[in-house]
């Protein structure tokens, strides 16, 4: 049965590959084909970098959404400080640079024939495949929290309609309500983001609904830039933000959408607004490709981002296991460029250089008040590690320093979005 099915797939893949070749006679036989799946910071940056390094390369970007909505700065949208449309980017410039963008979802991957199947039934061949699918929310991990529940208890962990929904719920909430944030254990997308979100929600509440509170139920004990956050909370939002850490029983074990209640091992917390950030895994297509392991994430060779499980497949961004590098837009962008360089080297038969990656992370706790964390990472013993200690903003600093970092954060967003989307 298995053998039959495999053979059938091979035949179908070969037929499709042949059809594609016939349909595209304008491409020289030698033009290598790289297909990138996922048009976020990782995928878009990688597609552009591939074309930039080798203009002869045939690069295809597969992304079902015609408009990308960025997560960095989306906490400001939730707090009413920013419009959702300033988070949105199209692929027009990437197309103008010669990347073929297909607005379809990839639904099948056959590594043996090196083909990708799309939702409309067409098939695409590749020499190298880059997976940049980001995260999927694990709707099976938290009892009570499924896709339907997320329309009542938004995660807002993928920017877009969920971001707008959480914003609307905050606007509709009466003064005196409690906003509860459920924070998952590591690894997850953008580790400091839940605390930035709590800060900015408190900023909105302080100005508009000052008797309200923010409660963080946390499956972690420690989090990045903790002292900076906690000092800022004391200074800006005294008594408004409470956090129950893992060792205080803060781990969320289930939710009840009917009563908007979040349940931990030791208590029930009814919420006026419930922001449930569930555990996560690599985007579904990584699993379909066979590139995700039992953790739900994708093991890679840190020099080339080549999957350790599937040949000719590379995985970048949130979906890959990148050791010490936190999952972030900044990391995805850096990984994308390193991966593009490595792919070009590998296809030319050269050995790829060992990358050094920069990661930066800005946390805004109020307008004009931000701090940051930046790191330099390099492969060591098959995994990315920090080569130099992280540079973090000083714990004690005058407000001018925080203001400057807030300005730098804005500039960073502009730079990275131009780098990824043109």
């Amino acid at each position, binding site marked *: 049965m298995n053998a039959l099915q495999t053979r059938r797939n091979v035949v179908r893949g070969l037929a499709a590959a042949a059809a594609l070749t016939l349909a595209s006679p304008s491409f020289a036989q030698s033009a290598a084909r790289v297909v990138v799946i996922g048009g976020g910071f990782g995928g878009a940056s990688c597609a552009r970098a591939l074309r930039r390094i080798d203009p002869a390369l045939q690069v295809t970007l597969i992304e079902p959404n015609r408009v990308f909505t960025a997560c960095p700065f989306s906490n400001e949208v939730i707090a009413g400080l920013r419009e959702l449309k300033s988070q949105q980017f199209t692929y027009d410039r990437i197309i103008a640079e010669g990347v073929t963008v297909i607005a379809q979802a990839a639904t099948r991957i056959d590594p043996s024939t090196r083909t990708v199947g799309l939702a409309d039934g067409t098939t695409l061949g590749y020499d190298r495949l880059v997976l940049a699918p980001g995260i999927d929310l694990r709707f099976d991990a938290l009892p009570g929290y499924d896709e339907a529940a997320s329309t009542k208890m938004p995660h807002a962990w993928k920017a877009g309609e969920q971001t707008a929904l959480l914003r609307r719920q905050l606007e509709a909430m009466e003064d005196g309500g409690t906003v509860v944030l459920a924070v998952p254990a590591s690894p997850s997308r953008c580790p400091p983001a839940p605390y930035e979100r709590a800060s900015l929600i408190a900023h909105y509440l302080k100005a508009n609904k000052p008797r309200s509170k923010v409660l963080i139920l946390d499956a972690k*004990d420690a989090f990045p830039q903790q002292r900076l956050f906690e000092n800022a909370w004391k200074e800006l939002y005294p008594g408004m933000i409470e956090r129950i850490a*893992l*060792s*205080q*029983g803060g781990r969320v074990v289930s939710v009840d959408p009917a009563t908007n209640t979040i349940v931990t*091992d*030791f*208590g029930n917390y009814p919420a006026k607004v419930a922001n449930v950030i569930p555990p996560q895994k690599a985007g579904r297509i990584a699993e379909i490709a066979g590139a995700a392991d039992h953790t739900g994430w994708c093991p890679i060779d840190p020099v080339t981002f080549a999957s350790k499980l599937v040949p000719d497949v590379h995985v970048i961004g949130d979906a890959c296991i990148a050791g010490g590098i936190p999952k972030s837009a900044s990391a995805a962008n850096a990984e994308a460029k390193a991966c593009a360089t490595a792919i070009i080297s590998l296809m030319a038969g050269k050995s790829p250089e060992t990358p050094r990656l920069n990661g930066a992370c800005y946390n805004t706790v109020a307008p004009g008040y931000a701090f940051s964390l930046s790191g330099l990472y390099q492969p060591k013993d098959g995994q990315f590690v920090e080569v130099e200690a992280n540079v973090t903003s000083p714990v004690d600093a005058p407000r001018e320093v925080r203001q400057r970092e807030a300005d730098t954060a804005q500039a960073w967003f502009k730079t990275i979005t131009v780098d990824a989307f043109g």
Partner: protein
Amino acid sequence: MASALINVPAKAKRGEIIEIKTLMSHIMETGYRRTATGELIPRNIITSFSCRYNGAEIFRADLFPAIAANPFITFFTVATESGKFDFDWIGDNGFAESASALITVE
């Protein structure tokens, strides 16, 4: 600073299997780590945990250095009668903490 969290259902039916959850804040220092200057950090762990149901011991555990900080211990028992659960944690350096919870069995 030690603090106990316990979760015992307030009510249960006679004969029902109930889950009991406990969490004790504790550093659980293994005794194998050294400071930056090379001195051994002395062991400081919880060594034993027990639970009594109306005075009779129903659960006991010995704890060792390999157990992580803030031990979270959860177990099941059968609700037989209304009364009290007593929990005791004992450890190095005279560590002794206790907590209790009431249950009504119908």
